């Protein structure tokens, strides 16, 4: 148990420091990379809770796909740091107010009667052959199948909307049609000419 505690504290420290780094780093690329670190350590913490499917999916989806595209965009932006920091103090009270509201909300949830060791005792350790993935799949496709499908449709709608907003039909583009290119036969392009051989002078 001692060993796990040590790992827990190491991971939590890294998580908190990197999460603080995300909002304090000056360079947006650093922020994005620190967010990646936060995700990875968070996945480590979930592994400690025996939620291996969620932990690996977190890495797979957020680290492997979402943050890659995020980083992609952040690196493409030409960010002027001085202009970003302009008006910081002007907006500070507003930001502080929002932060306070969020802290209060989190506190209301976490300090309420639904959380705490009495209501939620530590889960019992499962046997080695217990498959978290299988259990999760069973729940998703039986008990929670409608919420799951709804979420899927929601994502699909978002995807279709994003494509519809960015798709432009350009008239002046000159892109080749691959299926036409593949269908081309030798006879269409080459003309064989029978020619008598010439003598060398």
């Amino acid at each position, binding site marked *: 148990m*001692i*060993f796990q505690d040590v790992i827990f504290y190491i991971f939590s420290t890294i998580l908190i420091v990197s999460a603080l780094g995300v909002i304090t780093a000056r360079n947006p*690329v650093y922020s994005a*990379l620190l967010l*990646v670190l936060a995700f990875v350590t968070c996945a480590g913490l979930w592994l400690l809770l025996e939620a*291996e*499917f969620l932990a*690996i*999916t977190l*890495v*797979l989806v957020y*680290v*492997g*796909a979402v943050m*890659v*595209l995020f*980083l*992609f965009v952040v*690196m*493409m932006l030409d960010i002027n740091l001085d202009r970003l920091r302009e008006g910081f103090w002007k907006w500070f009270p507003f930001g502080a107010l929002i932060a306070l509201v969020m802290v209060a909300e989190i506190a209301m949830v976490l300090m309420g009667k639904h959380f705490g060791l009495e209501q939620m005792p530590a889960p019992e350790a499962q046997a080695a052959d217990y*498959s*978290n*993935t299988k259990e999760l799949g069973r729940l998703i496709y039986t008990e929670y199948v409608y919420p799951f499908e709804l979420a899927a449709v929601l994502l699909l709608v978002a995807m279709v909307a994003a494509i519809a907003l960015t798709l432009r039909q350009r008239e002046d583009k000159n*892109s080749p049609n*691959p299926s036409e290119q593949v269908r081309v036969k030798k006879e269409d392009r080459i003309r064989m000419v029978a020619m008598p051989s010439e003598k060398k002078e």
Partner: protein
Amino acid sequence: MEYLQQLFDQLFGTAWGAMLFSLATNMTFIFAIVVPLLLGVAYLTFAERKIIAYMQIRVGPNRVTFFGIPWLRGWGQPIADAVKAIMKEIIIPTKANKYLFILAPVLTIMPALAAWAVVPFSPEVVLADINAGLLYILAMTSMGIYGVIIAGWASNSKYAFLGAMRSAAQVVSYELAMGFALVCVLMMSQSLNLGDIVNGQQGGSMLNWYLIPLFPMFLVYVISGVAETNRAPFDVAEGESEIVAGFHVDYSGMAFTVFFLAEYSNMILVATLTALLFLGGWLPPVDIAPFTLIPGFIWLLLKVAFVLFFFLWFRATFPRYRYDQIMRLGWKIFIPITLIWIVVIGAIMQLPDSIRNMAPLNVWF
């Protein structure tokens, strides 16, 4: 083993002794995987140069030898290359972001090696026999892209950045097709554990391997694997003729070599996974006497070498894809094929038992 465990218990007490003992055994295991892997990488570069040379009617490396033994000519080449790479200076460009520039190769090699943790080499020999092995490998290989992106950005050079952008878009696209192809394998084996997947292909002969019912998925997986590892003909991330060397144009010495190591160990990983998922892993092609006598590990090695040969063959044969062609292949061809195949497999799995037990289907389902 028992004796060592007791020794640890006596030295550190029962609480810490067990932990330290498992740490020590795991470290030994890790070295037992990583050292042969890196040697394999070194000799894969040699094999690549030799095979491509013979395909192009050349001889390839034929000078460096060990202790002047004449018939080993050329075999010392990878070692000599490694020594040269270690001795060379690592140049960091003035305007580069120093920390990220150094971090990038590390981030590339880390997932390339970490993914090997769940790969089984024979029925019992596996470092971490976890339930979600395949997911873990997908997660690890998807992290490899960070090294490329960070390298391209930290170099502060246009060519490097263009290479990184190309690579990021390409890898993210092909990951989807790869993941869908793997979903078919999962549906067949009903397990995420790599050992269970291989055991699911047992049954007398190579007809039982997932290669046959999932043949389109096999092709999709191998081609996506080539694209994921940025190998020719999908190597637009490097694209010597367009952007010099892409994301690692500013790297030199060992920093460059680490990228190289990661690329080749990823190649071996994809080949091993292909062998495990589609070619029956350590199972012999036919369960008859001369084949069953050969240990399973040798069969696995043979299959990995077979797939790796294709990787090298592709490089010697195909011209590089144009970028829009790569994207078209990934999004408009592979993803629809995989989605259709998932539906087909699902439909077959839902057929009534009387039909599923008929002649060709009962071999696999």
